């Protein structure tokens, strides 16, 4: 594959920015570390406290934040292409709703830790299957049917969540709310997210051109030789898997999946071969930054990371939109 300059430079720049953000994020927190202290901790030197801080708290959390952001942004970009709707985001088909209902049920039942994440994952998968099954109806699932089915199912989940919050015993409510707002403080295992994100980025690379054509509508894509039904199904499965893993890792963090792909399209154009890997990097960077702010602004108190992603994203997006070519 010959990668032309317009692919290399943006991706290289984003990679460097990502690395800088990740390193900065590891140094920041309730106790700030200098680069020298960080380097010592990486080499297994320096104070034991610093080593524990870096290896057991900061690195897993920063990696989890980065992977979650990458998953959400790539899932959002895929959903927008699949549904041919610029307003689509990873949660539009009710995936996070299903995950939330399952997670809240688990919290109510007193389940914690890995099993809570497992419940969320199962909820996400069940909700996905439910939406896809219902959208099939007679004949094939058109994007519009899929979108409307997803929106209605999501509304249904929303009602279930409200009902559960209303009926829950008061001492359980803070934990439930934190899960709903998106929270990385429980995300001690970033490995699942990375194990999904990295291989899927490679799977998506040869699909980029087909997705470019699919963005022009299914008929045009079929006329140019794309097996539309197969591609749409694959994209649906991949986007759902990415979202399910993201929700399982960090609850539902809003805004990233909607806005990161659009920001990148405004700056880089709409070639999916560039946009999808760029989404993984930029989405990861945004959530890493947001999470760093969330745990430092009023440290030792923490803010919900979803609030910060929105506060960072809204002005940036509006600025790009005013200069852009939409």
């Amino acid at each position, binding site marked *: *594959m*010959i*990668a*032309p300059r317009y*692919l290399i430079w943006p991706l290289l720049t984003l990679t460097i920015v990502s690395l800088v953000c990740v390193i900065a994020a590891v140094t920041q927190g309730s106790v700030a570390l200098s680069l020298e202290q960080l380097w010592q901790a990486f080499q297994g030197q320096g104070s034991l406290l610093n080593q524990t801080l870096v290896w057991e708290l900061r690195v897993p959390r920063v990696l989890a934040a980065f992977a979650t952001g990458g998953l959400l942004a790539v899932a959002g970009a895929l959903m*927008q*292409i699949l549904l*041919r*709707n*610029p307003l689509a985001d990873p949660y539009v088909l009710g995936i996070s709703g299903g995950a939330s209902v399952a997670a809240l049920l688990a919290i109510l039942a007193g389940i914690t830790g890995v099993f809570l994440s497992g419940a969320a994952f199962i909820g996400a998968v069940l909700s996905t299957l439910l939406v896809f099954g219902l959208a099939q109806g007679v004949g094939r699932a058109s994007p519009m049917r899929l979108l409307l089915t997803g929106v209605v199912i999501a509304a249904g989940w929303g009602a279930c969540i409200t009902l559960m919050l209303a009926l829950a015993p008061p001492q359980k409510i803070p934990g439930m709310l934190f899960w709903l707002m998106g929270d990385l403080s429980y995300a001690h295992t970033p490995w699942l997210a990375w194990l999904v994100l990295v291989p899927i980025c490679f799977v998506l*690379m*040869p*699909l980029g*051109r*087909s997705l*470019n*054509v699919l*963005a*022009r*509508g299914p*008929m*045009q894509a*079929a*006329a*140019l*030789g*794309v*097996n539309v039904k197969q591609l749409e199904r694959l994209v649906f499965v991949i986007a759902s898997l990415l979202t399910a893993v993201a929700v399982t890792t960090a609850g539902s963090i809003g805004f990233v999946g909607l806005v990161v792909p659009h920001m990148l*399209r405004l700056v880089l*154009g*709409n*070639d999916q*071969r560039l946009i999808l890997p760029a989404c993984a990097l930029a989405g990861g960077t945004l959530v890493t930054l947001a999470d760093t702010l969330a745990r430092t602004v009023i440290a030792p108190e923490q803010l919900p990371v979803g609030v910060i992603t929105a506060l960072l994203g809204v002005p940036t997006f509006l600025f790009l939109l005013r200069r852009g*070519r*939409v």
Partner: protein
Amino acid sequence: MTLSTHSLVLDIPLREPHPLELAIESGQMWGILGPNGVGKTTLLHTLAGLVTPRSGSVSLAHKPLSDWHRLSLAQQVGVMFQEHQDGFPATVLETALLGRFPHLSPWEMETDADIAMARASLAYLELSALSERSVSQLSGGERQRTALAALLTQDPSVWLVDEPTNHLDLHHQVAVMRLLQRKAQSDKLVVMSLHDVNLAATWCSHVLLLYPDRPALMGRADKLLTLEHLQPLYQQPLVQGEIDGRLVFLPKPV
């Protein structure tokens, strides 16, 4: 190359089935004429293998379309649609470059040669000045020509074109019809749907008249384009005249 249909019945609801036996050869330029809703677009989509017929089949080079691999079919058959969808921003050049899709493998990137082909197509359709413009900013006629530029870049052996002159001014109508005719003369196979009988009379070698209520007529344009066949086709009284040796049909105002 031959594009043929065998007992083809289009999938149009509530229509009496009139099986269609077509045999279109390279070098011919066919116009499909008929009233609104008769199935001109459905026929083009069926010929391209995009829509499954109710019964019967379509063959290209004596091989049923269902036996073709999608991508190799797209190297041979190109379609220009009547409606152009664009949910996402794309430039005119990117759109013209779409035509190279079937010719590249999944891991290949477009090379300078591909981009040069797209630019040449844009130049041919007088769109060079607009190549960096977003398609959403174009006028109807400019978009129509952009879609045709994508087809020109695709360079298929079979051209299936839905209403090529939609939105076009008279100069560009002639330019586009001449392009299609030139393709037919260089041994491509061209099939288009048309609303304008006079365009068919001027440019097409063959016509297919699709009637809603009786079997279709097909054959040489100069034999079939007569008042006797056209008035029942459109359910409209017509008059015919001759200008500069060309046959012209006009609706009789009632």
